[in-house]
């Protein structure tokens, strides 16, 4: 369970998050939509403390942290309960695919090496990379790298996986393979928060959709609630701009 209370974040004089409250139950797949600058990526990065929010509370599982007084240990704790899949993949360049996946379990979670390697291999097979164990990230396509990124996140057995625009940096023809893997994980019951621009994917996979704009949550609900029956004007405007399918007869 993830609980976010009253999160505020400013970069200099620019207020990016103006009081976010959010609760995510286990197994939920939450998709966050919004125009650029809405703060959705910043919110995601605040959850695992890649960014330090200015005030508020973040709780992941049993760890509850007040961001103003967060200790190093608390931050480490949260970073170990969460995993992130990055827009630019960020695979460890100096390690092979398999090493990337087992790095977390072996080095951070102190899992037995043999067991970690076996689970790692299984995960990689699961994401369709059974023949790339010893390849280096520089030898893989974008789609392959992202799938490794997802396997790396899964290997940690986290409370939640945070997806920061996982397909935005991919060539169109590679987007599908990554979305397929994410869909698979969602079905397996992993708690996920996904920031994305892929609308039809969001409709398909999400159990809840959140629309953010200018640092606040404007509207949230089931995919149906948002995509076909949006209540707020801002939401409607955004959806109309993104895809003509969502324009309404006023």
């Amino acid at each position, binding site marked *: 369970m993830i609980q976010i209370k009253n999160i505020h974040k400013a970069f200099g004089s620019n207020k990016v998050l103006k009081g976010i409250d959010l609760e995510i139950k286990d197994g939920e797949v939450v998709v966050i939509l919004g125009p650029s600058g809405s703060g959705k990526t910043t919110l995601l990065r605040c959850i*695992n*403390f*890649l960014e330090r929010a200015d005030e508020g509370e973040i709780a992941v599982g049993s760890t509850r942290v007040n961001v103003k007084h967060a200790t190093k240990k608390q931050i*480490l704790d949260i*970073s*170990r*309960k*969460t*995993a*992130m899949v*990055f827009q*630019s*993949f*960020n*695979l*460890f*360049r*100096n390690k092979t695919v398999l090493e990337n996946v087992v*790095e*977390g379990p072996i*080095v*951070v*979670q102190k899992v037995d090496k043999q067991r970690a390697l076996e689970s790692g291999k299984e995960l990689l097979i699961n994401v369709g990379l059974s023949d790339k164990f010893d390849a*280096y990230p*520089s030898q893989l396509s974008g789609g392959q790298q992202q799938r490794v990124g997802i396997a*790396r*996140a899964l290997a*940690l057995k986290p409370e939640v996986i*945070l997806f920061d625009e996982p397909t935005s940096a991919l060539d169109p023809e590679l987007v599908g393979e990554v979305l397929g893997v994410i869909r698979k994980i969602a079905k397996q019951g992993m708690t996920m928060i996904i920031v994305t621009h892929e609308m039809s994917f969001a409709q398909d996979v999400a159990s809840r959709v959140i629309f953010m704009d200018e640092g606040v949550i404007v509207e949230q609900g089931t995919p149906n609630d948002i995509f076909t029956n949006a209540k707020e004007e801002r939401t409607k405007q955004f959806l109309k701009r993104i895809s003509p399918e969502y324009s309404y007869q006023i």
Partner: protein
Amino acid sequence: MGKIDYFSFHRVAEYFPLLLARLHITLIIAVSSLIIGLVFGTIIAAIRLFNIPILKQITTIYISFIRGVPINIQLFIVYFGLPALLNPIFLKVGFDLNLLDAFYFVIITYAFSSSAYLAVVVTAAIQGVDKGQQEAAHSIGMTRGQMFRRVISPQAFHIAIPEFGNAVVSTLKDTSLAFTVGVVDMVGVISSIAARTRHSLEGYVGAAIIYFVFCVLLERIFSSVEKKLKVYK
């Protein structure tokens, strides 16, 4: 009209063994300075990366001084200055720094000098590692120590290699000035040869050839190491 004998390749060949006999001194100076310089330079880099208040300013001045002052002047300052500065202490234990062989002053000078360049190389390399790598390491819950050891330093090492190669070649070339404080290395021995034969040009040419071979060799070695490591990046 008699032809004045200015230059003969024969003499170059003649001087070669004499020069090579002194090569080890040049190499020892270069290697020792680089090793000490690397250690010291890493410490300076750490000070700068961790932003330690007063020390960082001192390192900035230090690096600026080393980069702005010609190396032969640095040599003279250490040669005259170190005894002047430290003799009060050393004389008490019965050791007069003025009697120390110039060889050691040379190594100390070059160690200081290369440490400044290497500090910059190390700092640039560590800062050159893509920030995303750090974020990924954080996202899987690594401590800063683990992050640095397992992700950042291996990659910084790869980034540093070309510039480090430059620093090595640079230090080697700088050793050619050791003779100005009296070290009898390859270049230093030429004066004594010239005193006998009055033909120093062939000596300088011979020494230049030896330096040339080493520099080109080093450059080749570093580029092939770079190429081999490129697979992983």
